[in-house]
C-alpha cells in the first residue's frame, strides 16, 4: 500500500462524514485562527510602534543633567561636546534643548499652544527637520545670542500667509526676527509639531534666567549599538558626577527595543494561551479517532483478514487523523487571514490608528506544522489500538 493510496483512503473517509469531520476539526480551527490573529496583531503593533518612534528619530538619545545636591556643579555644553568628540563610534551630533514657557505674540494675537525651544545649530539635522525657506539657527546666532527664530509651517501659513521670512514676533515681550521656515511635518494643526518656534539656545537660556542648560539631544551612530552607546555616555557622566542620580540618559532605539520586547512577551503569552486550544483540539481529535476505531472494528477485522499488516492499519488511521488536523489547520489559516483583515478594518475605523494586522509566513507555517503534528501525535494512540486488534475478535464485532 503506497502513501498516496493511504492518503486517498483517509480523504474519502473524512469526506464521507463532512459534518463530523468539521466538528472534529473545530478545536484546531479555532486554535490556529487565534494564534494567527494574535501573532498578526503583535506584528501590527510592533510596526505601529516602530513607525511612531521613527517619527521621533530612532537614532536619538536624550541626556538630562540634574546636578548633584546643593553643590551646583553642572557639566557644561563644551564638556559634553568633548565626550561626543572622544567617542566618534557612538555619537555624532549634539544640541542643547531649552524649553521656554514665555508667551508668544504675533501681531496682536497671543499664541497659547505654540511651543518655544532653544536649540543648537545641529538640532534640525538631529531631528530630521528640513528648512523650507530661509536658514536654520547658526553658530554665530548662538555666539552672539541673537534674537532670531525658525518657525514651523503652521505659524508661517496661518499667521504670515506663507511669507514669514523677515517678519517679527514677540516672545516674552522680546522681538525676534523670523529667519527660517520648516517644512510641514505633521498636519499643520494648532499645538502640533508644526506649531513651533526655535530660537538659539544661548538666547533662550538668557531669557529663561536659568543660565544653565540641562537637556541635550544627540544622535547615535548605530541603532544596533544603542544600549552600548548609552552605557558609554552614562560612564562618562558618572566619572564627572560620581553619582548616578545626577543625570538621565535615554535612547529612543533602546526604548523601542524595550517596548518591543515587552510587547513580544505579551504576544507570546497570548499565543501560548491560544495554543492551548490546539492541544484541546488535539484531544478532541483523539477522542473521535478512538470512537472511530471502535466503530470500524469490523472494517479493521476485514482488512486484517484480507492481509493488511499492522503498519498499514496504523498508517491509515494516523494519516486520517493528521489529515483531519491539517485540514483544520488550513481552514484556520484562511479564517485567520480573513479575521486579520476584518480586525485591521475595525481598528482603522474605530481608533484612527494605522495598525495593520499582518500574520507573517513564519507563524502561518508554524501553525500549520503544529496542527499536522498534533494530528499525528494524538492519532497515534487510537491507531495503535486499531493496529493491534485481534482479527478474529474484530471480525465478530457487531
Amino acid at each position, binding site marked *: *500500500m503506497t502513501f498516496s493510496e493511504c492518503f486517498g483512503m483517509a480523504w474519502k473517509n473524512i469526506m464521507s462524514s463532512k459534518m463530523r469531520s468539521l466538528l472534529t476539526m473545530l478545536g484546531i480551527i479555532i486554535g490556529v485562527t487565534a494564534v494567527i490573529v494574535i501573532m498578526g496583531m503583535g506584528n501590527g503593533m510592533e510596526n505601529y510602534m516602530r513607525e511612531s518612534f521613527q517619527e521621533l528619530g530612532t537614532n536619538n538619545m536624550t541626556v538630562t543633567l540634574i546636578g548633584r545636591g546643593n553643590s551646583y556643579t553642572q557639566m557644561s555644553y563644551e564638556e559634553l561636546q568633548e565626550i561626543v568628540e572622544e567617542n566618534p563610534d557612538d555619537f555624532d551630533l549634539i544640541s542643547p534643548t531649552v524649553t521656554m514657557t514665555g508667551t508668544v505674540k504675533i501681531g496682536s494675537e497671543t499664541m497659547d499652544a505654540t511651543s518655544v525651544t532653544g536649540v543648537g545649530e545641529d538640532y534640525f539635522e538631529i531631528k530630521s527637520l528640513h528648512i523650507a525657506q530661509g536658514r536654520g539657527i547658526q553658530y554665530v546666532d548662538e555666539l552672539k545670542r541673537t534674537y532670531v527664530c525658525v518657525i514651523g509651517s503652521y505659524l508661517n501659513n496661518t499667521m504670515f500667509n506663507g511669507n514669514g521670512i523677515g517678519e517679527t514676533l514677540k516672545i516674552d515681550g522680546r522681538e525676534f526676527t523670523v529667519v527660517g521656515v520648516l517644512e510641514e511635518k505633521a498636519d499643520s494643526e494648532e499645538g502640533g509639531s508644526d506649531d513651533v518656534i526655535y530660537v538659539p539656545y544661548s538666547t533662550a537660556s538668557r531669557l529663561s534666567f536659568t543660565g544653565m542648560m540641562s537637556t541635550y539631544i544627540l544622535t547615535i551612530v548605530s541603532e544596533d549599538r544603542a544600549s552600548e552607546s548609552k552605557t558609554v555616555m552614562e560612564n562618562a557622566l558618572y566619572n564627572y558626577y560620581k553619582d548616578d542620580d545626577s543625570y538621565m540618559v535615554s535612547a529612543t532605539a533602546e526604548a523601542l527595543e524595550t517596548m518591543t520586547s515587552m510587547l513580544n512577551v505579551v504576544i507570546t503569552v497570548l499565543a501560548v494561551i491560544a495554543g492551548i486550544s490546539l492541544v484541546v483540539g488535539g484531544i478532541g481529535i483523539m477522542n473521535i479517532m478512538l470512537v472511530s476505531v471502535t466503530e470500524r472494528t469490523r472494517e479493521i477485522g476485514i482488512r486484517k483478514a484480507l*492481509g493488511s499488516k499492522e*503498519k498499514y492499519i496504523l498508517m491509515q488511521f494516523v494519516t486520517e487523523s493528521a489529515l483531519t488536523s491539517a485540514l483544520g489547520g488550513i481552514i484556520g489559516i484562511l479564517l485567520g487571514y480573513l479575521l486579520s483583515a476584518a480586525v485591521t478594518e475595525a481598528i482603522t475605523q474605530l481608533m484612527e490608528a494605522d495598525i495593520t494586522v499582518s500574520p507573517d509566513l513564519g507563524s502561518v507555517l508554524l501553525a500549520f506544522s503544529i496542527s499536522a503534528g498534533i494530528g499525528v501525535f494524538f492519532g497515534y494512540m487510537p491507531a495503535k489500538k486499531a493496529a493491534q486488534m485481534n482479527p478474529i475478535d474484530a*471480525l465478530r464485532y457487531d
Partner: protein
Amino acid sequence: MAQETIIEFRDVSKVYHMGDSIIRAADHVNFTVKKGEFVAIVGQSGSGKSTCMNIIGCLDVPSEGEYLLQGKNVGEMDRDELAEIRNEMLGFIFQQYNLLPKLNLLENVEVPLMYAGVPKEERRERAAAALEKVGLGNKMKHLPTQLSGGQQQRVSIARALAGSPSVILADEPTGALDSRTGREVLRMLQQVHREGNTVVLITHDNGIAATAQRVIRLDDGHIVYDGPVTDPNAFVQPKIYTEEVAQ
C-alpha cells in the same frame, strides 16, 4: 495421483483459558487437504470447527502441534507474516459477506490486491475480471448496500478469487441467505472448485456440506468422520445429548 498437499494438520490442538477452566477447542486434530479438493468441515456449534477454520485461515495459531500451509509452518509466524500468508494464499468468504460499506464493488475486490502491492492498473483489471466472472460486471460502481445478499456474497467470492489464492475458505457462506440464493452461491463455489481451486467449506448444515466431495466431521474437538461425501456414515450424528437435555 501425486497431488500436492496444501493443508496439513499435525496433531493440532487449541487450548483456551476461561478463568480457571481450560477448554480444548481442538484436540489432536490430524488431516490433510490436497490441491484441488473440495472439503466440507462440518460440526455443531462448539465442535471446534470455528477454531479449525481460524487456524486454517491463519487468523489464529495452534497451541500445540503443527499447521503446514503449502509446506510452511504457520505456527512459527508473527502477526505480520500471518497477514502476508492470508493475503497471498487464502481467499475468505464470510457468512456476513464482510464487504467494506464505503467502497464500491470494484474497490472492495481490489482491497486484497492493494495489500499485495499490485499496481493500480493491473489491480483494476483483475478486480473487474473477477466481478465479470461472478456476473456483476455491470455493477462495479455500486455500493454493497445497493445489492441483495446473494449479490453481495458473489462480490465476496470475486474478492476471494481476485488474489488467486491457494485455498478458498468459505465460512457458512449461505448462512445469511434464503435457500434459493444459497443454492446459487453453492453452485458458484462448485464452479470455482471445477476450475481447479482448493475449496474448504465450513458449515453446520449437512445439506450444504453435501455439495463438497469430502466431509470432515468434528465433534467436541475431535474428528469423528473423514471421508467421501458419498459414504452413508458421513452424515450420521455421532452423539445426542439426550441426558443433558433431559436435565
